[in-house]
């Protein structure tokens, strides 16, 4: 990233590097929108009206903005989780499961702690406990995979997928069993509502957006600081780029692999916590499904940079949120949104297409995602 030329101020350099880094994703989005518009035309829809609905539904009013922020919150946390692992050369497909265990544990602490203790816990103690336990659970869940990688060489892709199955089926077992809401009218596999003291309050009266969104932005800044300004961040990136070199440079690679996975899991766990504590106030089977997989897409689109992740998360959130308004206006299937997202990812992943269409010269730089199999 460091330019060798000393001409131009530092801000100008930063701006330039941002605009260079975001050029391909931006053009990918633009191309996807055009291709999506053609598809809408093909199925007899009105692309202008559809996109107008998408924009109105995602940014058109304070309520729309609030709902977009709500969607963006778990996406930012989970996207950061995957991005951090990418920086360390690890492919964390397990955000889905880490998110689920984080949600389950925070819901449990949220509704059961006052019962166990026999008195109402003040929010200043209860809420931090809810967050901390959920985060730790996510960290442990991913840390296991990190340890398997470090000590046995078991590949994290396989192991995170397997841990997803364990997490989701255990969640199903608990929500249908001991953690199920026992009120007589309830037939759904879900926990009781968490106590008021375990809830993250909304920012504005009458809107659902809560302080978790602010926390997500602060966390993104923290991850950026961690990766670029600290020794640990340097070690994570070095292991990600070349573990052999890292080893000869005296870095404890095993420790860094476990730590990277655990940190990644903690972020994913936080995504689950925030959904329970800030929005749903309980956990239910079928809540927060697929966010862990969307997170991979978000990390890719954001090029694993915290700022990129935030922007990509907001984009995905806007699309998911605006889909309702789009369907309301056009009666087009909401699957169209998934298709648009797929187009964007296709163009980002196969950026040669974009570079060819718009005649952009490749600078020869590559973003390290993973070291692949057996690395």
């Amino acid at each position: 990233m460091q330019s060798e030329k000393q001409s131009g101020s530092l801000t100008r350099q930063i701006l330039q590097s941002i605009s260079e880094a975001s050029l391909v994703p931006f053009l990918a989005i633009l191309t996807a929108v055009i291709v999506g518009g053609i598809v809408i035309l093909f199925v007899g829809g009105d692309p202008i009206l559809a996109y107008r609905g998408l924009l109105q539904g995602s940014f058109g009013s304070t309520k729309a903005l609030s709902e977009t922020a709500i969607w963006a919150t778990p996406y930012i946390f989970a996207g950061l989780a995957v991005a951090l692992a990418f920086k360390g050369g690890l492919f964390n497909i397990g955000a889905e499961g880490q998110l689920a265990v984080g949600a389950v544990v925070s819901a449990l602490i949220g509704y059961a702690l006052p019962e166990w203790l026999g008195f109402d816990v003040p929010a200043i103690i209860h809420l931090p406990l809810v967050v901390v336990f959920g985060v730790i659970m996510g960290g442990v869940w991913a840390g296991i995979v990190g340890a398997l990688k470090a000590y046995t060489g078991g590949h994290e892709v396989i192991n995170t997928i397997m841990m997803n199955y364990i997490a989701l089926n255990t969640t199903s077992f608990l929500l249908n069993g001991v953690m199920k809401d026992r009120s007589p009218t309830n037939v759904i596999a879900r926990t009781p509502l968490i106590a008021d003291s375990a809830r993250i309050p909304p920012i504005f009266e009458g809107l659902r957006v809560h302080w978790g969104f602010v926390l997500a932005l602060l966390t993104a800044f923290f991850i950026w600081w961690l990766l670029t300004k600290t020794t640990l961040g340097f070690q994570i990136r070095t292991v990600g780029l070349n573990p052999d070199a890292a080893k000869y440079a005296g870095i404890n690679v095993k420790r860094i692999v476990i730590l990277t996975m655990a940190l990644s899991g903690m972020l994913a766990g936080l995504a689950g916590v925030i959904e329970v504590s800030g929005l749903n106030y309980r956990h239910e089977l079928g809540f927060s499904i697929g966010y862990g997989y969307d997170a991979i897409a978000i990390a890719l689109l954001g090029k694993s940079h915290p700022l990129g992740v935030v922007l990509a998360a907001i984009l995905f959130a806007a699309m998911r949120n605006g889909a309702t308004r789009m369907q309301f206006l056009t009666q087009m299937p909401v699957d169209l949104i998934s298709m648009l997202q797929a187009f964007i990812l296709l163009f980002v992943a196969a950026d040669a297409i974009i570079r060819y269409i718009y005649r952009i010269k490749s600078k020869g730089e590559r973003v390290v995602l993973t070291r692949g199999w057996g690395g």
Partner: protein
Amino acid sequence: MKKLYVFMALLVVASMALSACGGGAPTAEDCSKEDVFCVGLVTDVGKVNDKSFNQSAWEGVQQAQAEGNADVVQFIETADAKDYAKNIAQFGDAGYDVIVTVGFGLGEATNAAAATYPNVRFIGVDQFNAETVAGVSGLNFPEDNAGFLVGALAAAMSESHKIGAVCGTDVVPPVWRFGEGYKAGAAYADGMNGTTTEVFVVYHSDVGFDKTFTDPEWGATTAKSMMDQGADAIFGCGGLTGNGAVSAAAQAGKYGIGVDKDQYFELTDAAPRMLSSAIKLITPGVAKLIAAAKAGTLEDGNVFGDAGYAPYHDLDSSVPDEGKKMMEELNKGLLDGSIKTNVPPVKP
């Protein structure tokens, strides 16, 4: 680059030409006007073409429009459970007069929205409220009546005097009512015909909600084990799980009985051996409530729609006349209340 500009210009022109068409009939944007009667439908996580309750409810809304009881009808398909409130609000904010929410899962969101939008009538399909909520009419169905009818039919038609039912989880009250109604109907027919019928009813309660309605293999295996014990009529009640049981019965040359809607048209492989289906009349139920809402006569609280049984189709000639007559009498008796299934609304 040049080609690209031309292409984009063409695209813009084409889309403008398309969007210029239309006009005339009232659109969603007229719903805030008092004289335009608008009905919106929010699905549970699922689609309006799911061949199940979302589709039936949407057809009910369309029927209401065809009957002149709605000027504008729109649907929103829920993609994620956290959007329930937002999707309802989409219609509420646009000034819709009636909002239909489909499925038990939307119950809480519907009740909450009723407080936010006091001028909107809410129709909650399959939403049973223990306490009446102002503005909300829960459309429920006497599934036990439908189960009762097909149970009586199965008992009357069985030559081995052994019949079975393969159901989803009994934790869901409608499923439990289907199964218990089936038992009660068989017993009632026994009383009329002086027979003794053994009834096997199995609920798939050993697995989670994600699996209980989507396990056709388990349904088929369970149906086969019932047929090994001599059962010659199988009632499948519970989504794909039940469908598997019905198909297995049809393959073995036994009678299969469908659920929710006339599955003769859906389970084409089993159709020649489909005796009937226990049906919930969701489509006419929704249409009727919308008509009542338009007339201003729809009341708060739980409303019960109708349940019944589907035609015999291919097996029409196999059902004896006295059997058909019995079924008509039972249906009439259940509708006018002279026959009762004695099945409580929820599992005690």
